[in-house]
């Protein structure tokens, strides 16, 4: 049971933190349509986060989605390190979204067959949105990668910044083995090869080389984060910390 709670929180935290990061673009996107696109993606992700938090709250008992999201500290968050990385320029934001959506699409494809009905329902509901995110971000990676000299260089920089955070997606956390065993969770190591193949195809079109032998950071799924998460939570949790139990 505890493993399932932690697993659900991991799914929730990753979508919440990435949503918060993307939402920083609101009003700052390069053109209006793309500003709307990235904030729409934020909205989808926060919707997924709410579904997972509501379910986690039910499993934990005597709590609710808001308490879980607003009143936990860094070490209690189980999000992927990739999600908390700074937006950087548009290229870096796009690449972070592409890496994540490619992973999430493969994850949800399997999670919708989970033995846990609620996790399966959340994944089945969200996978269509994820296919939009995947198409949108993948197209942008290609467009920027094989675009101008400058956009190409910026994508190379983005790859350099982010590649080291992709390995963690495929390393199971301690709470994942039990949920995989009971067929409620997805075995992430099995997603690595299909993910890599998809990324290679997109990178080839984008004229970007897939890096090799890069040190892979990990720990986010177990609560050990980069310095960025503290700043994100400070902003995200400010209202509930300053005015406890305040409501709209």
């Amino acid at each position, binding site marked *: 049971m505890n493993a399932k709670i932690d697993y659900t929180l991991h799914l929730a935290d990753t979508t919440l933190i990435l949503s918060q990061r993307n939402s920083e673009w609101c009003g700052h996107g390069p053109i209006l*349509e793309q500003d709307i696109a990235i904030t729409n993606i934020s*909205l989808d992700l926060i919707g997924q986060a709410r579904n997972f938090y509501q379910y986690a709250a039910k499993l934990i008992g005597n709590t609710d989605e808001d308490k879980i999201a607003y009143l936990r500290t860094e070490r209690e968050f189980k999000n992927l390190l990739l999600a908390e990385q700074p937006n950087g320029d548009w290229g870096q934001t796009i690449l972070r979204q592409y890496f994540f959506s490619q992973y999430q699409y493969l994850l949800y494809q399997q999670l919708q067959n989970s033995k846990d009905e609620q996790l399966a329902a959340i994944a089945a*509901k969200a996978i269509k*949105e994820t296919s*939009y995110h995947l*198409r949108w971000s993948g197209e942008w990676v290609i467009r920027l990668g094989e675009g101008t000299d400058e956009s190409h260089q910026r994508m190379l920089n983005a790859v350099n910044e982010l590649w080291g955070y992709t390995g963690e997606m495929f390393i199971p956390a301690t709470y994942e083995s039990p949920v995989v065993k009971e067929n409620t969770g997805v075995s992430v190591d099995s997603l690595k090869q299909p993910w890599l193949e998809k990324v290679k195809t997109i990178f080839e079109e984008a004229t970007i080389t897939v890096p090799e032998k890069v040190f892979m950071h990990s720990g986010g799924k177990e609560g050990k984060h980069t310095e960025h998460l503290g700043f994100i939570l400070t902003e995200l949790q400010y209202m509930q910390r300053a005015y406890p139990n305040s409501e709209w």
Partner: protein
Amino acid sequence: MITHSTDKKLIYSYLEEIKDPEVPVLSITDLGIVRDVILNNDEPEVIITPTYTGCPAMDMIAAGIKMVLTSHGYKNVKVTSVLSPVWTTDWMSEEGKRKLKEYGIAPPNPKQQVCNENLFAPNETVQCPHCNSYHTHRISEFGSTACKALYQCDDCKEPFDYFKCH
């Protein structure tokens, strides 16, 4: 005495008063998000399902259901949201699609063409709700709300929303 089934019908007719706050010509029954109405000793429970995961209208819709049914004399109205089976645009009624078009939003195509992961898929052919031309092109897959994409007509030049693939 009112029988059980007519009471349920009556509740459905009240639910037609509740509009989608983001597309105010559509009632929640047109939208097809009311899954069931259960009566426990005259206390109704309305089962609804979200269109999009992050649809911010759902909280307002749930509050609307409680207000409307309470104003018609029902007590302890309960609204439960379920995710499964997943809502798709197929759940929208024909009446709903007609109202959408009249409102200037292109209704979802009967057969969705681009709901997959392939990049640079050809744009879905969408009919202009203003002049009925099929010479239209997509401006953005993401529109003013999560459920819409932005299109423009090549004949009458009007931009319009398309209630997108879902």
